[in-house]
């Protein structure tokens, strides 16, 4: 067994062994390990299968940029697509590889690789078109979905997250060398500062490589420790670790997600992650850089990895993925890797550089020579070969000569890019640097400062200068820093995007996007097919469209495209970087707004009584309303509603109508205002009377209805529909403030202050006279559509004579605090008269028998009062009201508008079904003319059959004729079109 541990790493607790499972097999790692570093410790290199071709894949990077090593965490509700390179292990963790069947080692889906010459760019767009439209949905899509893709969605998910808001002056993104220095320079200033680091260790490059050995004469780890202590002791800087900034919005609004369970199993009773919503004045981006890869034949084999990542595994995670790696580079960033390996007495098997011997830094050159490492200059890795793991590579030198090197590991470096993702999200502009061959932040749009390698400043000697210059606006503490680095300070790179190798076979591929299986050939094909704009090319090839967003490869693609088109990279441009920077779980976004907190639940003041009395509830907007009250467990909804309806028609019933919106309108001009808001005229109405009223939109369509009580010309109380209350109040406010500011009028919601009980039925008067024995309920003393205030047991109540059922009835308005007392009293006294509570379904049935509409059910935003036959409600003599002018528009006076009618089945045993279409002929021939539909339908216990309301084209003139209604089993039933009233047409019961 080769010793793969680097005991020098201070971040791994080598005395704390942790066991975990990968694909069912138990392995050991140490505290501090990621899944990836632990797997390397166990010699595992094959970790997943690729998206499209099911090619074997290993670990390519050591961070958030990982394209390949995505795993499913079985022990956390089977969370899919977790980056093995970021997620830390804990005792008992269960991990599974993704996108393979039946096993990772033997994957049937890899047959796709054999057919891969067929699956070129745009394959889906071109192939799955015929022979019939239904083939996509029924055959292609299910098959493709099964074969392609990432992890499996979790079956049962219960992550808990919370949200935290911050308002600060400065946010520093990234706690590496520059982030720490920025914090030091702001130490104990008057700025409120937040330092955010995605890792659980601050230090960045100081931890990840051996580039910097000493800062200000101290070993770098010692310097970090001291600096962190200073920051933690400061009054103005807060550190957030394990927190990834995913989003940089307009007006310096950042979103960051904090993992609360790093290296531990999340529990159900505590918050797993916190979403930080941060508003700040300034943002300092010191989030560093990302290394990019290089394309050559089979550059995806397990055992190929980015050079800087290899070094990070050694330094940060104390594991050496291979003892004999080959290094292939075109830039100076790999120098420190050679240094790190040699310090551990590991001799790279070969060092291959596309640069010439003169271009390679002298220090590195000497090191390689001194240690006798095989050096290939002016050379490129042409291809890699191996079965499920790297076995050998072919190196080609400038003369075209090739040599073969047997190796199990290859470290690749194609250069480094500033991590500009957040900078571009903030809408800053990038500029191409022809020397360093990368995009660098140029013009910021917001108060954004970039520092260090995030700004494209790769020279360590410049750090002090840059920070003092760029942070000057804060009048900070001056930074004095002396960095001793082990390698060359200057960054140097030679242009190389892909190795131009001859095609060796149809199946060997040179990948440009590892996660989405896009090859350099696909890029060429897209351009030859005319997709030469970068945004088009991205969508056609799916390049950089994976969950990694092409972090290690998108610049390479731009380089290849610019060469192919013979354009400057700046002219090619980039695709737009959109948030989030890395996948953000829905659980984190939802926060506490999930499960029972998803939407507020509103309850009537007597909700508990309903529960005790066995009510079944219905959601109406945010309200929980009793739907019906079954008298036993076995009574069905139909039976309960029939029984309740019958009882209301024969005896009496009471409904909890507390959810109805109630708005109080007061002011010198309240009468004028009400006349403008509603269609009706309230001018001649006597104080103490009530009126059914309609509210329209400016387009003339019915928006809401309700009963208006006039207390005086300066005081009204309006009821609204349960769901429309907020909108009606908002509409009143809008017009009062914006259109008629001269009117002295004020309004407020009193919905929750008062409970409402609607009692109705032929025995109502007797019951009311008993409950409120001092009040005269005779027709003369208390006529229909009037209201009175009464004192009842020291509580002021309002009683209104009104009805929504067609029976005589009263509405009682009670302060919410006394609601239960009066509700129980009504039941106590009403029992002998057969009074029962009834729910919303019975209310709907009874009102439909009377042809009373429900706004939103019988109307849909395209129905005028005239369409409803409610012409009588329009104040003809009023000069103006909302929507008045629209009622005479050419469109609203058409006779063939959809109008409200009643319908009855010709054969009484037929069922009329809500939502079905009205036809004029018996057979259904497509296309069926859209004449109208059934808006309400119920079975009437009074009539003994079903009936309905419908909106039909030219309906008013069709009354008295016959038609057909479709049914859910594609048949039709004959119907009679009748007036929309089925019960007590003369309203005798109402006013009795």
């Amino acid at each position: 067994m080769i010793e793969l541990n680097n005991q020098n790493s201070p971040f791994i607790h080598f005395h704390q062994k942790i066991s975990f499972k990968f694909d069912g097999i138990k392995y050991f790692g140490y505290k501090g390990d990621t899944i990836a570093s632990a797997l390397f410790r166990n010699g595992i290199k094959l970790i997943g299968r690729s998206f499209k071709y099911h090619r074997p894949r290993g670990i390519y990077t050591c961070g958030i940029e990982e394209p390949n090593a995505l795993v499913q965490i079985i022990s956390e509700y089977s969370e899919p697509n977790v980056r093995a390179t970021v997620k830390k292990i804990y005792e008992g963790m269960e991990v599974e590889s993704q996108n393979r069947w039946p096993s990772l080692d033997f994957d049937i889906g890899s047959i796709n690789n054999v057919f891969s010459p067929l699956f070129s760019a745009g394959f889906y767009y071109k192939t799955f078109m015929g022979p019939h439209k239904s083939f996509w949905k029924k055959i292609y899509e299910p098959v493709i979905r099964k074969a392609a893709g990432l992890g499996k969605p979790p079956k049962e998910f219960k992550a808990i997250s919370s949200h935290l808001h911050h308002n600060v002056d400065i946010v520093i993104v990234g706690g590496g060398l520059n982030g720490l220095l920025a914090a030091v320079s702001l130490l104990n200033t008057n700025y409120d500062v937040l330092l955010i680091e995605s890792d659980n260790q601050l230090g960045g490059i100081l931890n990840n490589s051996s580039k910097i050995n000493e800062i200000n004469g101290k070993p770098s780890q010692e310097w970090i420790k001291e600096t962190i202590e200073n920051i933690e002791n400061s009054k103005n800087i807060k550190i957030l670790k394990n927190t990834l900034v995913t989003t940089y919005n307009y007006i310096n609004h950042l979103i960051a997600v904090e993992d609360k369970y790093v290296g531990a199993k999340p529990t159900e009773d505590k918050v797993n992650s916190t979403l930080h919503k941060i508003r700040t004045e300034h943002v300092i981006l010191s989030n560093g850089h990302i290394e990019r890869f290089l394309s050559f034949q089979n550059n995806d084999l397990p055992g190929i990895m980015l050079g800087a990542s290899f070094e990070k595994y050694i330094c940060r995670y104390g594991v050496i993925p291979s003892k004999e790696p080959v290094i292939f580079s075109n830039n100076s960033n790999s120098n420190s890797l050679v240094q790190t390996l040699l310090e551990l007495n590991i001799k790279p098997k070969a060092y291959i550089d596309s640069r010439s011997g003169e271009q390679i830094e002298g220090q590195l050159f000497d090191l390689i020579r001194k240690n006798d490492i095989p050096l290939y200059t002016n050379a490129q890795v042409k291809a890699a070969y191996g079965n499920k793991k790297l076995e050998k590579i072919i190196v080609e030198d400038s003369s075209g000569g090739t040599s073969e090197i047997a190796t199990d590991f290859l470290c690749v470096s194609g250069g480094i890019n500033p991590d500009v993702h957040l900078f571009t999200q903030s809408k800053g502009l990038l500029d191409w640097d022809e020397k360093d061959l990368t995009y660098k932040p140029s013009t910021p749009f917001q108060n954004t400062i970039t520092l260090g390698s995030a700004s494209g400043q790769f020279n360590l000697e410049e750090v002090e200068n840059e920070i003092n210059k760029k942070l000057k606006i804060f009048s900070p503490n001056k930074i004095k820093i002396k960095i001793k680095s082990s390698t060359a300070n200057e960054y140097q790179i030679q242009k190389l995007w892909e190795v131009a190798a001859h095609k060796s076979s149809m199946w060997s591929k040179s990948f440009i996007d590892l996660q989405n299986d896009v090859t350099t050939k696909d890029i060429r094909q897209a351009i030859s097919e005319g997709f030469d704009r970068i945004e088009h090319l991205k969508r056609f090839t799916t390049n950089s469209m994976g969950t990694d967003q092409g972090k290690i490869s998108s610049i390479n693609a731009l380089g290849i495209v610019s060469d192919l088109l013979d354009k400057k990279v700046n002219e090619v441009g980039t695709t737009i970087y959109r948030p989030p920077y890395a996948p953000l779980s829905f659980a984190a976004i939802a926060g506490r707004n999930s499960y029972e907190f998803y939407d507020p639940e509103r309850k009537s003041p007597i909700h508990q009584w309903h529960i005790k009395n066995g009510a079944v509830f219905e959601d109406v907007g945010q309200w929980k309303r009793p739907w019906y009250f079954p008298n036993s467990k076995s009574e069905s909804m139909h039976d309960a509603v029939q029984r309740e309806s019958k009882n209301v028609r024969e005896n009496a019933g009471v409904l909890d109508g507390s959810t109805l919106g109630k708005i109080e309108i007061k002011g010198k001009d309240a009468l004028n205002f009400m006349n403008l808001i509603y269609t009706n005229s309230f001018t001649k109405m006597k104080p103490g009377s009530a009126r059914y009223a309609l509210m329209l939109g400016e387009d003339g369509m019915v928006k809401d209805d309700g009963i208006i009580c006039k207390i005086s010309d300066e005081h009204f109380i309006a009821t609204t529909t349960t769901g429309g209350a907020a909108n009606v109040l908002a509409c009143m406010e809008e017009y009062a403030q914006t259109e008629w500011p001269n009117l002295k009028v004020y309004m407020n919601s009193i919905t929750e202050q008062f409970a409402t009980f609607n009692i109705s039925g032929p025995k109502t008067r007797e019951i009311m006279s008993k409950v409120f024995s001092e009040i005269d309920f005779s027709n003369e003393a208390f006529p229909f559509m009037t209201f009175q205030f009464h004192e009842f047991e020291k509580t002021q109540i309002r009683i209104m004579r009104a009805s929504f059922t067609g029976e005589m009835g009263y509405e009682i308005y009670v302060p919410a605090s006394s609601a239960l007392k009066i509700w129980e009293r009504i039941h106590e006294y009403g029992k002998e008269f057969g009074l029962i509570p009834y729910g919303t379904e019975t209310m709907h049935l009874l009102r439909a028998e009377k042809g009373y509409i429900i706004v939103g059910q019988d109307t849909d935003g395209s129905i005028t009062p005239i369409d409803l036959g409610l012409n009588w409600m329009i104040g003809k003599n009023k000069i103006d009201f909302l929507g008045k002018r629209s009622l005479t528009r050419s469109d609203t006076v058409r006779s063939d508008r959809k109008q409200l009618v009643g319908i009855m089945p010709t054969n009484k045993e037929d069922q009329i079904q809500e939502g079905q279409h009205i036809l004029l002929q018996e057979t259904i021939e497509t296309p069926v003319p859209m004449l109208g539909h059934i808006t309400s339908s119920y079975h009437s216990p009074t009539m003994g059959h079903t009936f309905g309301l419908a909106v039909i084209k030219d309906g008013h003139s069709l009354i008295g004729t016959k038609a057909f209604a479709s049914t859910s089993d594609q048949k039709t039933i004959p119907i009679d079109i009748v007036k929309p009233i089925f019960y007590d047409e003369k309203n005798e019961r109402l006013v009795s």
Partner: protein
Amino acid sequence: MLVIDCPYCGPRDQSEFSNGGEAHVKRPDGSQDISDREWGEYVFIRSNPKGLFYERWVHSHGCRKWFNCVRDTSTDEILEIYKLDDPQPPLKKFENKIKTPSGEPDVGSGNFTVKK
């Protein structure tokens, strides 16, 4: 998310507000004898410029007050906020902010990512 400076309450997050569309659209009152077309334009037609736009907002989860603002729709920058009875600020005041012929500022619109 925008920060909107409510003239009554001070700066607050956008989530407390609702947008009310174009501002300064006068409602023809019922005493006016106007054609179907004129009325229809009031009800249904609003301008939708790329660039400077007068618009209405209401602090719906705050003081419930309506107010007006001038916003650059291509960058989301709010240039001025004023009460309903304040005079309408002339667009001239802001015009130097627009740089490109299409009305697109060269930084901040998000349509450009790279310096030309």
